[in-house]
């Protein structure tokens, strides 16, 4: 659907550049100086707990929320001045399904294309292409109410691509879907990414981020607290492995003391001790023998996320 972008050139214009973005709703500061840079062909994931400011950031880029302060450029053009211009080349999959229930599947694409002033002849062909690509072709005359959750999400994706966007914004694109439906969408998104589509993704699913994103930014309380390649960032900030010890307080405290000489990160959560291992540590191997209950596994993005944003429930 898109030709691959030439890569490697430093002079290449950023698709999205956000500097010191702030937003205050009444007393509540949602964004406190967020910076984002997105290069052509990249898939940038914003990861953060509920209320971290991910969706607000997206809504600011779309002009649905007015920023309190900060600079935003899309395709090198400053917002909000060039908002309309810029939106001709943006496709959005919103978190909340807002397909048009008054229209059929195919009509949803045709009518949406009209908002971008795309010529009718071109649209028909593109709509059919997209319906095939997202395995919806035999449901094209169906009304929206009769579609499954997965089909609706796929239609939202098809709709987001109807204007051949240079930037695809995905706000939790697989939220609430079963594993099969999610896999199909991931596969299609990977396909698009390989063809060079630039994407801005928000998600709670670490697997989704690890699979799709080329860069991840972890956001908490309206600020970015970590950024990097999903695989690298875990290794650099946490380590390669994680060990979970459980046992009596005494024993865990003893272990903590023992580990002070080691190059490891240790975190106590109630009756558990999480140890993130960067390099080998003889004390640790020794200690393991004393604990019958040890889980040892590779460190993941989820571990990093929980380490950085805490294990407590967030309800803002």
């Amino acid at each position, binding site marked *: 659907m898109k030709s691959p972008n030439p890569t490697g050139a430093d002079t290449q214009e950023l698709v999205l550049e956000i500097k010191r973005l702030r937003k205050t709703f009444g007393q509540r500061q949602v964004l406190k100086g967020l910076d984002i840079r997105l290069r052509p062909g990249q898939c940038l994931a914003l990861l953060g707990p509920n209320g971290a400011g991910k969706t607000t950031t997206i809504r600011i880029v779309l002009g649905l929320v007015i920023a309190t302060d900060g600079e935003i450029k899309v395709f090198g053009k400053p917002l909000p001045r060039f908002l309309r*211009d810029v939106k001709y080349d943006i496709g959005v999959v*919103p978190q909340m399904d807002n397909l048009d229930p008054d229209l059929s599947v195919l009509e949803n694409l045709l009518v949406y294309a*009209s908002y971008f*002033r795309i010529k009718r002849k071109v649209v028909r062909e593109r709509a059919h292409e997209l319906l095939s690509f997202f395995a919806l072709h035999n449901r094209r005359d169906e009304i929206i109410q009769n579609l499954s959750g997965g089909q609706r999400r796929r239609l939202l994706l098809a709709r987001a691509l109807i204007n051949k966007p240079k930037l695809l914004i995905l706000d939790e694109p697989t939220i609430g879907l079963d594993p099969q439906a999610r896999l199909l969408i991931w596969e299609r998104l990977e396909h698009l990414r390989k063809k060079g589509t630039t994407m801005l993704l928000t998600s709670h699913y670490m697997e989704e981020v690890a699979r799709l994103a080329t860069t991840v930014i972890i956001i908490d309380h309206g600020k970015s607290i970590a950024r990097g390649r999903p695989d690298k960032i875990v290794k650099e900030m946490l380590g390669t492995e994680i060990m979970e010890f459980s046992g009596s307080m005494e024993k865990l405290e003893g272990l903590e003391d023992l580990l002070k000489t080691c190059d490891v990160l240790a975190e106590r959560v109630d009756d558990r001790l999480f140890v993130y291992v960067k390099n080998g540590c003889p004390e640790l191997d020794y200690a393991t023998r004393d604990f019958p209950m040890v889980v040892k596994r590779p460190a993941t993005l989820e571990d990093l996320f929980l380490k950085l944003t805490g294990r407590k429930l967030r309800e803002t």
Partner: protein
Amino acid sequence: MYQVWHRNFRVWLKHIQASLIGNLGQPFLFLLAMGYGLGRSVPEIEGLTYLQFIAPGLVASSVMYGAAFEATYGSYTRLSTQGTFEAILMTPISVQELAMGEILWGATKGLIGGIIMLVTLPLFGVTPSIWSAALIPVLFAEGIIFSALGLIMTAVATNYDFFNYFTSLVITPLFLFSGIFFSLKAIGDPLRQFLYFLPLSSVVELSRTFCYGRLDWNIGLELLNVSFFSISCTVIAIFLLKRRLIQ
């Protein structure tokens, strides 16, 4: 703007029957009950039989109802439960264009009802003059007034029940006191001036004037009043919808 209008038109075509009957039923029933029923025991007003007297006003009222209901219940559904407005605003369409598209659509829907009323009047023995054609732009401007008023309500509504205020405090009083069913000329002065100023009264007067080709100098003032209301209501509606949709 046109795209928003066209989206609504497309949906309307799908349910054209239900929509037309829903909007036309009421004014026709009034015409029958009041015109034929009550009219037989009412003397002539301003040289017209009672049926002739109320028919042009009911044309105006059908435009008001059509436009006002579309811009409240219709637009509010698109704004709230369906998320249609938000989906549209993710595209290059601006809030102003969205508001204008909705207002023009509401006006169109009102006008469709008004025109159907107008062309069926001969069936009731009311023969319109050639001036009736001049009424069409007036009815469209009236449609803009009431769909903009409806959109103002939509922009501040928190649920559907909110529109009860609009219906009982604005639409129904206008329907009853805008000179459709009785001549405003008979009323004492300060009140009469106020009633003449109401947007529907001007249209009712214009409608009667054009239907029977009895042109007079009041037309200018009435047209001015209709323009004033249509422009100011539109400006307010755009402002309030923007405040509602952009945080």
